[in-house]
């Protein structure tokens, strides 16, 4: 089958995006083809501006329009706490909870020797000077509960031993509002291994 070349190029470009397969890419391309020109131009403009205007905060490496992100600039945030996360998308998830009012630090990944990611490829060294500069009292490690996330948390905790700062990890266990009887066995089992003293 012969497809007009510009259409084929558009399909190929779209299918490079994560979670977009060949079929979806084709549907998106045909949809754009049918849309009016203004709609397509608005989309293209937003994408170009995304790339031109957004940078990374030089303090915490969050997504930002300025040198410093809105969170780092804000006078309302509690500057004695830093929450360490893997990616900027994790900040969005935590911000939605409205439960945390401190600062963040984005590592840009986790330790993963198989993918050739060692500590020097992450923003770990950039975290240390912040503690003294900002007078941090607590570092909260909010990394994914898998082998790589756990190890990265352990690694950072080891580095922070020589600093006068409290280091905590977010809890893992049962989802809120979920009945114990409906949770999967692995989650309940892990929740038991990580049980805490109440009294």
């Amino acid at each position, binding site marked *: 089958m012969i497809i007009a070349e510009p259409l084929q190029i558009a399909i190929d470009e779209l299918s490079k995006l994560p979670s977009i397969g060949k079929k979806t890419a084709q549907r998106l391309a045909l949809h754009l083809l049918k849309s009016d020109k203004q709609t397509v131009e608005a989309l293209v403009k937003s994408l170009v501006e995304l790339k031109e205007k957004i940078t990374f905060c030089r303090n915490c490496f969050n997504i930002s329009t300025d040198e410093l992100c809105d969170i780092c600039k804000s006078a309302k945030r509690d500057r004695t706490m830093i929450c360490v996360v893997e990616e900027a998308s994790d900040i969005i998830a935590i911000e939605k909870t409205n439960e945390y009012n401190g600062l963040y630090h984005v590592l840009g990944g986790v*330790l*993963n*020797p*198989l993918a050739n990611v*060692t*500590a*020097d490829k992450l923003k770990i060294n950039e975290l240390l000077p912040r503690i003294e500069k900002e007078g941090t009292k607590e570092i909260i490690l909010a990394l994914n509960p*898998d*082998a*790589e996330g*756990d*190890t*990265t948390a*352990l*690694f950072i905790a*080891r*580095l922070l031993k020589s600093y006068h700062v409290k280091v905590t990890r977010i809890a893992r266990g049962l989802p809120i509002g979920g009945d114990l009887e409906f949770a*999967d*066995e*692995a989650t*309940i*089992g*892990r929740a*038991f*291994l990580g049980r805490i003293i109440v009294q």
Partner: protein
Amino acid sequence: MVLRQIDLTNFRLHRKTTINFSDGINYIIGGNGQGKTTILEAIYYLCTTKNINAAADSDVVSFGQEMFEASGDFNELSKDHTKIVFDLSRNKKFYYLNEKAVNSSASVIGRFPIVVLIQSDHAITLGGPSDRRKFVDTVISQASQTYLRLLIDYNKTLKQRTNLLLQIRETGNNRLLEQLNAWSESLVNAGTEIIKHRKNFVNEFNIYIKEAYNRIMTDKEEPEILYESSVNTETQTIEENFKSALLNERDNEIRRAVNLVGPHRDEFIFKINGLELRRFGSQGQHKTFQVSLRFGEFFYLKEKLGKTPIFLMDDIFGELDIYRASKISEYLPKVGQTFITMTDLTKLDDLNKKENRLVIIIEQGKASYA
């Protein structure tokens, strides 16, 4: 749990076969290459979505055909209709539970518990430590999803750590040592839990293996399983022992770029009357031990899961003397639904006849009832 009926289409020699089973013992009789073990293969697929001998799915499709299909009706408190389809051209397998597609095999495992006694069980008593670890891991995993998760995490950590050891050896970069310590800590965290689970398991399972062994061999032979970890598990300080063992081996680990300490190097030692089976056991003792391990697994899972597993036995009477064979057949009615393949109908006359049983004759991929 009982499998009432299976339907096979283009499943090896079985072009179109329907069999209704008894809820007791099902003897599947046929000559070599007639398609009797294929029935066990199909049952295993329906219970686990996987091949019983880890053969390729494409090998199971009848010659010249495009797909195989197997379906079965299970009965416990409720009825469950299961179906598995393999499409050769797309090289894809589909599993349906009550007509709904199921995407992950993990959500099927444990739902229809199954215990199999097959030829490759030789390896458990005769093979290397990894064969015994595999046996122990599959039994515990069926009873505990937590253990399965821990194993997956632990194995991932092992791979990552090997890679880092390799990088340290190649580059001699000392800054990587701090990261090695973090990976070691992860290894200890998951590994300690695995050791605890295995230790508990061996303690419990010894009761089951003794019970099973003594039913098959009435003379005074005492079987035993010992747990020998590369980490000292005797005291309350497994974690500390693990850490110090890692520290002792660190230079060796870097030099060889291999993980030298942890449950992935554990050994389970099988003994009869205090003598190591692997070194001093007779053929008959090995076979009896293998059979007892599976009977032990059956009753262990029945107790832990609160469900009665299905028991598959591939040609076990062929290799046993008449004394052991009749002892096992006396034991069988205690089990539940069982599927046993045999080459020879006359052997059956020597075995227990009066129980609830069905004889199915398989010839050239066709089934009939005797």
